[in-house]
């Protein structure tokens, strides 16, 4: 563990930006074992590891990194599995720079240990080698838990409770499990095969998954109890697309990011006509918003053959909510950023098809309630961006489908479910909730953190009755 090593963080090999901007294959290629060992050897093995405090599910980070440094990859993945059932996913999509890596001591003077890359390495190594046994289950308790939604929080709850000996059935409204991991995050950032593999691990441990069941319609929460479930966890995500409510929004050529990404990812429309679901191909594409979903949409449009893809955002680059790595990737791939700009109306031709967006320039004023500087319209600054496809990625609200069919479930102002942040308990007996339907749109790992706390609380309830 020389000082020189500590300074040089192993760079992640990536596909060349010019090549990858036109294919759907994964952007980062992954560490080789040599690179992983070299990177793991940079870890200082802190006595009081701050990285762990930054991890919403509390992975024993120094311990698994030590195993990698020693070349014991099977022990490394075993260590991660103790706290995280989706390491191949988290190693790819967690905002590590703001969590574990953001706390790393090495980051104060140089580059933090590449914890995310190492987690990904361990998980990918295991998938390729199948060297580890699944974690063992405790004796069956005879208790049944229904998990509604198979996204990151639902999968975490299911993974934890199945190990504790409970019977778990996951209900998914779509025809494939994974939630946002399969419909929202593109193949080039998270290959679907990886989600399928992590889900099948869960099934191998005994979790049942029933797709095509829309809880709130096919079954209500109360009916799940009538069918013999002892507890219900609601991890249904936010999932109601927001629109800007400006003129022309229902024109052909204006899509929500949810629709665009679901077509591209879940329905694999990028393979059309080999598959049956079509997707619009824009020549000039505008994406409204600057979060991760906006970056995913814009990079997808690029890969579908757009000549120009512009991100339109009303604040400046500093306020963009997307992960810095994603913004960086997007820039490398040639995306255009139209910052300090706000759309005011869509323009269409005589057939009602989109031909452009009228925007105004903005400047930043005093900070608003979000702490970010409030964008203010510059008078007389109207301009038009020509485009034939616009993707609205300005966030999402709470989908009321389930909550409306569960009248005794207390909700907050915007329709999100009220749940205790420490336990996930809702105001309805034996019902827990977590993830985006409680917090509003957030990250995969925060949803998993909520799932972990809820699983602990559900286990206590099933064991002791509280």
């Amino acid at each position, binding site marked *: 563990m020389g000082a020189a090593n500590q300074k040089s963080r192993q760079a992640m090999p990536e596909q060349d930006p010019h090549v990858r901007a036109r294919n759907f294959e994964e952007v980062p290629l992954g560490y080789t074992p040599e690179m992983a060992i070299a990177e793991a050897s940079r870890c200082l093995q802190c006595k009081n590891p701050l990285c762990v405090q930054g991890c919403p599910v509390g992975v024993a980070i120094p311990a698994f990194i030590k195993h990698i440094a020693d070349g014991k990859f099977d022990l490394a993945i075993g260590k991660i599995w103790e706290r995280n059932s989706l390491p191949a996913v988290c190693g790819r999509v967690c905002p590590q720079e703001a969590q574990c890596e953001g706390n790393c001591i090495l980051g104060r003077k140089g580059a933090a240990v590449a914890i995310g890359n190492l987690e990904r390495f361990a998980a990918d190594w295991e998938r390729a080698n199948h060297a580890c046994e699944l974690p063992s289950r405790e004796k069956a308790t005879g208790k049944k838990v229904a998990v509604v939604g198979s996204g990151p929080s639902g999968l975490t709850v299911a993974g934890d409770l199945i190990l504790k000996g409970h019977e778990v059935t996951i209900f998914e*409204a*779509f*025809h494939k499990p994974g939630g946002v991991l399969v419909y929202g995050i593109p193949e080039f950032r998270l290959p679907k095969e990886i989600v399928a593999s992590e889900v099948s691990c869960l099934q191998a441990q005994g979790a049942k998954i029933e*797709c*095509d*069941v*829309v809880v709130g*319609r*096919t*079954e209500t929460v109360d009916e799940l109890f009538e069918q013999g479930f002892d507890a219900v966890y609601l991890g249904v995500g936010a*999932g*109601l*697309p927001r*629109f800007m*409510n400006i003129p022309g*929004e*229902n*024109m*052909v*050529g204006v*899509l*929500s990011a*949810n*629709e665009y990404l*679901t*077509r591209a990812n879940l*329905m*694999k429309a990028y393979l*059309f*006509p*080999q*598959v*049956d*679901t*079509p997707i*619009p191909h824009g020549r000039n594409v505008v994406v409204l918003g600057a979060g991760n979903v906006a970056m995913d949409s814009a990079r997808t449009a690029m890969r579908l053959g757009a000549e120009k893809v512009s991100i339109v955002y009303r604040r400046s680059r500093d306020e963009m909510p997307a992960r810095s790595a994603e913004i960086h990737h997007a820039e490398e791939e040639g995306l255009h950023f139209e910052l300090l700009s706000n759309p005011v109306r869509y323009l269409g031709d005589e*057939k*009602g*098809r989109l031909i452009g967006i009228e925007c105004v320039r903005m400047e930043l004023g005093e900070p608003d309630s979000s702490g970010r500087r409030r964008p203010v319209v510059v008078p007389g600054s109207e301009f038009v961006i020509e485009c034939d496809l616009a993707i609205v990625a300005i966030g999402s609200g709470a*989908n*009321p*489908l389930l909550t409306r069919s569960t009248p005794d479930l207390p909700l907050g102002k915007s329709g999100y479910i009220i749940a205790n942040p420490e336990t996930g308990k809702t105001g309805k007996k034996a019902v827990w909730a977590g993830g985006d339907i409680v917090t509003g749109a957030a990250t995969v790992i925060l949803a998993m953190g909520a799932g972990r706390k809820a699983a602990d609380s559900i286990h206590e309830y099933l064991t002791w009755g509280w």
Partner: protein
Amino acid sequence: MFRIIKREEMAGGTVVLNEIEAPRIAVKARPGQFVILKANEDGERIPLTMAETDPAKGTITVIYMVVGKSTELFSRLQVGDSYQDVIGPLGQPTHIEGGKNVVCVGGGTGVAVLHPIARGMKEAGCRVTSIIGARNKDLLILEDKMRLASHDLHICTDDGSHGRKGFVTEVLRELLEKGGVDQVVAIGPVPMMKFVSLLTKEFGVPTMVSLNPIMIDGTGMCGGCRVTVGGETKFGCVDGPEFDGHKVDFDELILRLQAYTEQEKLSYHVCKCKGEL
């Protein structure tokens, strides 16, 4: 898997009926609600309003016209074959109020959706007059069932090969002129629903239409099924499928339904070339 236990061809094979095993959905479904069907792994998710449900048998029935690759694939499924996915029941059930004088207007395969609503209204004590139409006699479906579900049945064909020659709107106008109509329900091709709604608006008779916008998930998540109703954006899947015909922006709906026309032609063409169909 969702097994087909009955398959029937209507209208000279251009319209197909499938009775499908879907016990959970059969128990829950109410008239006016729809399901989303997907034939196989690479298939599209296609919404169809249910024509019938049998909770005791655990089956639902859909009736669809073969118009493109996906419905062609559906039509290739035989008794004993299965749809890979059937999701539902989705959407709001029809609001049925008894004791009214109702005119039910159906066109093409819309009659399949109209039938359980007409029957439900008759059972609820409404006086039901129905007008069903098609381009010609061979394309007219469910005549016998509609006769049972209605107190009075009028039939129109564009070419006069059965019933009266002309459009459903002509018969409707006569009924409206006679007066005493409390409500109109119109389900069929979008232009038909548009013209029925324009007509009933003249007479100030409330009119309900059932829309079929393009959608993916059917649970309010994709927003693809946006329709403008009374100047407001509504989602066909969760706010609908039924809306006040006097408030729907039909022209916008027609444009939105054509969003993928070119790609659908390509898909149909490619699969025929590859000999898949």
